[in-house]
């Protein structure tokens, strides 16, 4: 009996803490499990399906481990003992075949979801998509609305139910652009242009951040992503355009200089081609643009 005490003590600590943790998570916003956009919804249900598929193997493994270990403990001399029994084609076939079948099912899921949820793939919708260009800087996010002639820092706003086409680059080390409640991340890299298509279901304010170490101020690279009604969005754009606070090249140089925890700021865009200029800084003189910059 005494032998059981140590394991029991530690197992109770583990199980108790884990159930408390689950309870804690249930009362807090677990972003990935609380999707608010079409992409995040699909990614969440994929997560659930794949987890269930995996449990088909994982649960039997747990049960088998403890049943076999207990039954064939050295103290149990009644159990069968066959020291030379070392292979069984049927059994081995089973545990090659079942994982193979599961992984095959998962592979189909993998292929379909990878294509369906490709970040470069535009979201089908009746609403006209909006393009937002994203530049990661030391250590802040710059958002450029080329069509609306507006720019913001550490804050991004877009209308609900409208596909947003994010064009992403960096004028600093690599970062990763992520708004978990709306969908998965993609890297922001200097001299490269990546794409991410997201769409919010309803209005709301969501947390966004960088998910790739980029230096001293990395932890402060958070921003709010606000999904608002069409009317509110138009109003916000108009206010920004009329702010008289222009984002020009000298102003951009100021923003791009390393600084931490810059407050959310809104500009009228004074330099419509700013995004391409930022990317072109990294191009080798004479190199073709095609191939390195995606349309």
């Amino acid at each position, binding site marked *: 009996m005494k032998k059981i005490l140590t394991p029991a003590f530690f197992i109770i600590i583990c199980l108790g803490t884990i159930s408390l943790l689950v309870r804690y998570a249930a009362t807090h916003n677990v*972003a990935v499990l609380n999707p608010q956009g079409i992409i995040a919804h699909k990614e969440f249900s994929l997560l659930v399906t794949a987890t269930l598929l995996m449990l088909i193997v994982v649960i039997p493994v747990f049960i088998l481990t403890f049943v076999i270990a207990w039954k064939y403990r050295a103290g149990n001399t009644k159990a069968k003992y066959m020291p030379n029994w070392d292979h069984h084609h049927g059994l081995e076939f089973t545990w090659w075949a079942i994982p193979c079948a599961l992984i095959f099912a998962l592979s189909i899921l993998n292929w379909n979801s990878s294509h369906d949820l490709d970040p470069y793939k535009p979201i089908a919708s009746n609403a006209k998509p909006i393009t937002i260009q994203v530049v990661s800087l030391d250590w802040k996010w710059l958002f450029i609305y080329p069509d609306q002639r507006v720019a913001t820092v550490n804050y991004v706003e877009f209308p609900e139910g409208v596909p947003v086409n994010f064009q992403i680059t960096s004028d600093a080390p690599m970062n990763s652009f992520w708004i978990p409640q709306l969908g998965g991340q993609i890297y922001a890299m200097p001299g490269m242009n990546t794409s991410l298509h997201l769409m919010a279901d309803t209005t709301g304010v969501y947390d966004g951040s960088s998910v790739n170490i980029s230096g001293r101020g990395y932890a402060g690279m958070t921003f709010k992503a606000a999904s608002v009604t069409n009317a509110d969005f138009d109003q916000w754009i108009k206010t920004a355009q009329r702010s008289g606070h222009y984002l020009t090249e000298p102003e951009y140089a100021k923003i791009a200089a390393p600084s931490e925890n810059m407050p959310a700021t809104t500009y009228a865009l004074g330099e419509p081609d700013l995004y391409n200029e930022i990317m072109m800084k990294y191009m080798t003189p004479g190199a073709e643009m095609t191939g390195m910059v995606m349309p």
Partner: protein
Amino acid sequence: MKILGNLTFDALKHDGITGLTVNAMLIGAPIAFILLVAGLTYFKRWPTAIGFVKWLWKNWLTSLDPKKIGVMYLVTAFAMLLRGVADAAMMRAQQATSVGSSHGIVSSDTFQQVFTAHGTIMIFFVAMGLMFGIINLVLPLQIGARDVAFPFMNSASFWLYVAGTVLINLSLVVGQLAATGWLAYPPLSELAYSPGVGVDYWIWSLQIAGIGSMLSGINFLVTILKMRRPGMTLMKMPMFTWSVLNAMVLVAFAFPILTATLAMLALDRTLGMHFFTAGAGGNAMMYVNLIWAWGHPEVYILVLPAFGIFSEVVATYSHKRLFGYTSMVWALGAITFLSFIVWLHHFFTMGAGADVNTFFGIMTAVIAVPTGVKVFNWLFTMYRGRVVFATPMLWFLGFVVTFTIGGMTGVLMSVPAIDFQVHNTLFLVAHFHNMIIGGVVFGYFAGITYWWPKIFGFKLNERLGRYAFWCWFTGFLLAFIPLYILGLMGAARRLDHYDASMGWQWLFIVSGVGVLFISAGIGFQILQLAYSVWKRKENRDTTGDPWNGRTLEWSVPSPAPYYNFAVLSPVTERDPFWEAKQKAGSDRPAKQKYEDFEMPKNSPMGMFIAAFAFIFGFAVIWHIWWLVPLALLAVITTIAIRTLDDHSEYTVTAAEVEELEASHAQ
């Protein structure tokens, strides 16, 4: 020209906790040294001290005996484990306290150096050290050989590993370490964004240790292929040997990639080239591909030998043949092959197309098949066995639980669209700690406990070992289950600060408590070691076969003689020692015919090569240009001198062996 390059007294200046530690060391070390010298003089103990140093030099530092080298690997790796855990504790303390208006215990720059050090040290200097330590200790014995294929190269590899270890720890005192994460992605690791010596320390400590690892890989590959006991065909090799063979194939193929990648980054930083810079035609994405083309096989290099250890442990403690030997071999082969075509899953988020992502995603998930097969075979090795729950078996059962959870989250992340949501978050951190602590570390602990008597001649205390296991296991779950939840809550890895509104703090606190449990586990291990050494007479292994073992290493006395085997009699079976015991009923045949054989002489040259390599690295890091060619020349000269030495072996006569064997028999 500055005689010391960029090295000035400023390199010794540090802030905060690092400053305190460094100042304590800078002041403490000379005082300790003076006290030692004064004490030795006052108490007239110089002869004892000199005797100790001579003993150390003769029996350990210059030894080419793989068993001795193995022990030195373990000692170094354990010292580094303490450093790595201290780094982990600092990270946990920072993240538990640095919330809202509080900024925790260290600055963001220090924090970033700490997690870089943690990752780098744990992988290169703890896991690799433990792995090569155990391989050195066990492999030649297990294949029935007297030595490795290249005994001197083995010593050089070890000392290069030590040189790397010293170099990376030196960065704590002189200068600083990279603040880039353990894989130092450019452009962050390029001169433009990391102008200090931190990244250079990282490059050169890994480069020097990495070359050591590559040489070790080649050494053990050749040892397994060429030095096996007659009759031990490939399909009769013990499973640990098979796993090492596969791991060493990976080392031989993967480490050259690391060497080349680090060299290119060094050229960028030191000579102003543009392999990976953001501009001037450099391509950072190339670096990310290359580093993971090494980095992914690297995790299998670490975990395959752990699989091998579990195969030995489970069979021995179940007193039954390993189930599905052929399946196990093919599973190892499949994992080895697949591990080279999955590297892109570390960066699905870099924007490759869906086709490319899917290919690498499916290949990744496929690895779960052979791995799952191995788990089932271990379980069915216990089935119809007589399972003794010694400490190594506890590590095995703990491994099955943690590794299965980790395997499941790993397969989840192999689906690119899921990975987009958890990549680079604490979910990922929890996943790979599941694999590396639950798989690699638990495996190596099992192996060390299992083979301990063979090396030292006495068993480790079981009760303290069990306490250590339970603390580690509980601590592991407490430290990493919260990280899964944190990742899903949107917590990125490597954050030195976060907003109170995120609601993450309690989870970080629980995770910190987990680290306390793990520290208690390490405390019990130290206690176990000390207590077992103290009580070694009571726990002496007089038979050479304390666990009723199956493979050749248990057929020799404990501790194993320096020549391992007096007679190299051919083997005919898969578990030769077990079969011999079944047939004969007695452990060893009575009368042997001995012959003369040759063993390598001790040599300090490996240590010298590594010392010059260390000086070379240090000189490049600090741009002490006059020293660079001198150090390089010294390395080459030392290698040449050793290579031209024709008298590197001596003969052990049959009479000596007979005498030693007779003394063991008593």
